[in-house]
């Protein structure tokens, strides 16, 4: 990073003029002029990114102010950490933090290994047509809207005539049981996205040298041994990378599914920060308070991401090179 930063201006300006060799002897201005059409292409994306990504970042300051739309960002009264204190002293604060962390932690633990196992199995299928069918069907749920998935869940889990109750011969109202919420959330998540999660692993396995399998076959290795000694070592770097990336998003529980599956009776486990931010901010228009809660969530995420990045760069020294 440091090195390239120092190298760029040197190449363009002074050094280039002195030696006259790099970039056909053109100086920085000439090179910028040569590329004016490329900068023109970038104009709209850059402007939109500034307006809708960077100005909201500037707007985060309302978390520390008592925001009144009439007074604007900087005109509103500075209240310091007032909103944060209010959040931490609210009765459901602890519950929301715990629920957010537990849902994503358990999601990660369950939904991380399944695509790996699935892709190891699919990769060994020798009937091309069957293999393609399996892949096509497994990808399908990924393309269905959360709204439809949650509609299906509501119907399947219904106490009177829901598919699950019909199969088990019971009449439990699963969506009113706080103890069932995480299982419902995670199991349906696996159903929807485990197949899609295979793609990156299947692509990695497709690049394995076929000679390795031939050699293993000649040595009399069984399918299981081939998976154990060829496929798994091949997948390991990608798997570790995925695990690390997922760990960085530990506080990122999606709003949509929780909001659609939440009922008054399962709130003990389904109350999460994302839903609270929406309710306070959009439904009740408590702009400053909602921003503060959202900022707390983001900061925790960034800290996790930085820690995880540190581990990743250390791991990469050992694992990847």
């Amino acid at each position, binding site marked *: 990073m440091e090195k*390239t930063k120092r190298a760029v201006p040197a190449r363009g300006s002074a050094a280039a003029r002195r030696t006259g060799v790099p*970039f056909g002897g053109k100086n920085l201005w000439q090179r910028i002029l040569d590329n004016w059409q490329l900068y023109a*292409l970038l104009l709209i994306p850059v402007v939109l990114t500034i307006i*809708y990504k960077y100005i909201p970042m500037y707007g985060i300051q309302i978390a520390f102010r008592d925001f009144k739309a009439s007074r604007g960002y900087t005109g509103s009264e500075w209240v310091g950490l007032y909103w944060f204190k209010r959040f931490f002293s609210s009765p459901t604060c602890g519950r929301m933090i715990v629920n957010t962390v537990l849902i994503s932690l358990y999601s990660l633990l369950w939904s991380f290994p399944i695509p790996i196992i699935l892709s190891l199995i699919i990769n060994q299928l020798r009937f091309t047509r069957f293999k393609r069918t399996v892949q096509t069907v497994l990808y399908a749920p990924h393309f269905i809207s959360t709204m439809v998935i949650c*509609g299906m869940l509501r*119907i399947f889990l219904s106490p009177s005539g829901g598919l699950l109750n019909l199969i088990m011969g019971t009449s439990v109202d699963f969506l009113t049981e706080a103890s069932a919420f995480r299982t419902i959330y995670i199991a349906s998540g696996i159903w929807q996205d485990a197949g899609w999660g295979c793609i*990156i692993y299947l692509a990695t396995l497709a690049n394995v040298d076929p000679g390795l399998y031939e050699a293993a076959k000649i040595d009399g290795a069984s399918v299981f041994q081939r998976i154990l000694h060829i496929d798994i070592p091949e997948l390991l770097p990608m798997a570790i990378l995925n695990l690390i990336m997922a760990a960085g998003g530990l506080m990122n529980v999606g709003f949509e599914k929780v909001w659609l599956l939440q009922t008054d009776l399962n709130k003990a486990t389904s109350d999460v920060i994302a839903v609270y931010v929406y309710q306070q901010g959009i439904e009740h228009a408590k702009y400053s308070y909602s921003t503060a809660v959202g900022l707390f969530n983001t900061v925790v995420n960034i800290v996790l991401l930085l820690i995880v990045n540190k581990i990743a760069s250390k791991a990469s020294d050992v694992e990847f090179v």
Partner: protein
Amino acid sequence: MKNYDRARGMSDKTSDIVLVVICSIVLLIVAYPLYYVVVASFSDPYEVYAGKTFLLPSGFTLDGDKAVFLNEGIISGFLNSVLYTVIGTVFSVGMLYITAYPMAQKDLPGRKLLSIFFLITMYFGGGLVPTYLVVKQTHLVGSMWSLFLPGGVAVGNMIIVRNYFQNSIPHELIEASEIDGCSKLRTFFNIVVPLSKPILSVMVVFSMVAYWNDWFTALIYLGGKGTPLPLVMRNILIKSSATASQAATISGGYAELNKLTELLKFCSMIIAALPMLMIYPFVQKYFEKGFMAGAVKG
């Protein structure tokens, strides 16, 4: 040697069978709920909730499909969703391309800075309310454009496209066209875009799926105007579900109404899911390549 061969053949055969059996079970788990919805959409809801339709429709009816086509909410929601998907896809993919192409030029002055400028937005954002306030200040609330413009550039996909430009389009072609006097813009439209069809088709499908299935953005910004299909379905699927399936015991006109409500649930889910399920198999073969291109950080 012969014996050894035969033994190995046997073990490969048994493992083949085991693998196929496992995959078939997985296939069943994934496909059955979808199949069940289709079967139920053609069945009498009372029979469905009495557990008579596990494999084949019972009390066959097309009332649900009729109800869908007579339901103004669903029809207008469907048309709104089509409109948003078409405009959104053109906009998003266009943004991806005009960003990714300059970013793929390694000798573009300021490329590193621009890269950081875009990448930051992947990890950090203003959050729900500050973004909402900007959308409000730019007078987009209630307008269709609130669904497209605030999304800006999808940075993750932009990186995939950029890497594709760098790795899969021969540099000699671009140089040759520039030597022949093509401007950078003409090179982009006449050489790069036509050569990038595989990644273009993947991005078009991703973008279509995202807009077709999105309802959260519409919930926040549209304020009830021009509601897209998934949000229309929320009223049918989520809000009425607590009472409707319990009403299976009531008889008479109310029961008939409830029957239609239940049928409408199944049929509207099919209407909402089917278009995207019909599209993705066509580009499936490009998914793996696309992901690999994205995984190689350039």
